[in-house]
């Protein structure tokens, strides 16, 4: 094992920073998938025909209760062996991460939908509003207040799980540290430490903001 070295720390930093930018890109793509797909699943589980509800619930329970790491490996093997070996690790990794977290966010959305008082649904029925108006004008605005903070928390949690994707060769921070180690026989220790600190520096302010948002929404409603 190599000793801790401040010069190496400076040298390895640009590589880790590159990895950090990749992490942010993955977070953006996967976060978008998680937010949109999660909402679609929550709505589908509510208004879809019975077989759709059952299939959605079963599939997403399975995704929710199995490790992300194995899912990533499974899908990566499937795409590179049977579907299209040209697909990049970045695209496949972001998609799997997004779908995995959609299985969590859909539960937050579901809780938000279930918290809407029954009277609201009855009033919508009494006015015989069309389905898209019921959701667009009544359900979604109210449930968003309840779910937004929870979903934001899941996206922060997702951001911190991006490094898992290095197993399929997404060049994030761990992969960069290992690459540097492979070339210079040094720098992995410093690299992992920088990675940890960068995560802390990036996620802590966002987490505090999300907590504040949560408190404000909780006070402003219900």
């Amino acid at each position, binding site marked *: 094992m190599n000793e801790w070295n401040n010069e190496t720390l400076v040298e390895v930093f640009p590589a880790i920073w590159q990895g950090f930018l990749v992490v942010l890109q993955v977070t953006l793509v996967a976060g978008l998938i998680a937010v949109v797909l999660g909402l679609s699943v929550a709505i589908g589980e509510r208004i879809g025909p019975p077989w759709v509800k059952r299939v959605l619930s079963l599939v997403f329970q399975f995704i929710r209760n199995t490790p992300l790491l194995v899912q990533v490996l*499974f899908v990566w093997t499937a795409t590179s062996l049977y579907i299209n070996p040209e697909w990049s690790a970045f695209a496949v990794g972001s998609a799997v991460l997004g779908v995995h977290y959609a299985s969590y966010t859909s539960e937050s959305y579901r809780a938000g939908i279930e918290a809407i008082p029954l009277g609201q649904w009855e009033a919508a029925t009494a006015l015989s509003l069309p389905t898209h108006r019921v959701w667009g004008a009544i359900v979604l605005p109210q449930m968003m207040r309840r779910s937004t903070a929870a979903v934001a928390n899941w996206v922060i949690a997702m951001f911190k799980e991006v490094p898992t994707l290095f197993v399929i060769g997404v060049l994030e921070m761990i992969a960069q540290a290992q690459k540097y180690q492979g070339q210079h026989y040094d720098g992995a220790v410093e690299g992992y430490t920088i990675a940890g600190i960068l995560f802390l520096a990036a996620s802590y302010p966002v987490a505090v903001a999300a907590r504040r948002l949560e408190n404000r929404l909780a006070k402003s409603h219900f």
Partner: protein
Amino acid sequence: MDVQEVIDSLPRYVQPLLVTVEVTLASAALALVVAFALGLMTSSKHLAVRTPARVFVEFIRGSSVVVQLFWFAFAMPVVLGIQFDYAIVAGIIALGLNYGAYCSEVVRGAIAAVPKGQLEASLAVNFTPFQRLRLVVLPQAWPEMIPSLCAFAIMLLKASALVSLISVTDLTAMAGLIGGRDGGVNQLPHYALILVVYFILAWLIWTGMRALERKAKRGLGVDAKQVKGRLTPAVAEKGLT
């Protein structure tokens, strides 16, 4: 894909399955101890007790479990001069500390939810702080914690797959190893197999924790809420991440 090949290799999965269970149980035990220690510290009224615990919790929750795992396995021996004989120990400590920090929020929340009158009553009958904790606070807070702790136990099971990255031969590592023979043409069914095994393990945790919750609530004379048999982390609803 060759199903027969997967069936033939089943016996080789027994040992890794035990490793996965061992990592999960050991880090869950560590996480529970850490969670109660930190949860009690963060609900203390003394600033000198609360602050270090708070800082530690935010530090752990703020960064990534994957990075922490690598840090404990590869960087800590250099930086702090602490070297574990087996990678599995570093894995258990990293997972235990990480999930302990998350669960300490559950403990703190449940303690804060015990009605004020209970504490005043225990003061009125002149309980020592330790008696108050043991006889009044914890028996009422504990059943409230179980659903969230159950969710974190399942998260921990899933996170245990990460120890395969620091060269511990658990289920995930074994699936990569066996499936990787012959250039990995038979990889997919092996990953599918362990996905199902992980799901069954998660279901077992969930069922066990449901029974525990019912028992704990019966002790308080409260009926546990009926859930519609879906495996849902309670943390998803509360956003306890």
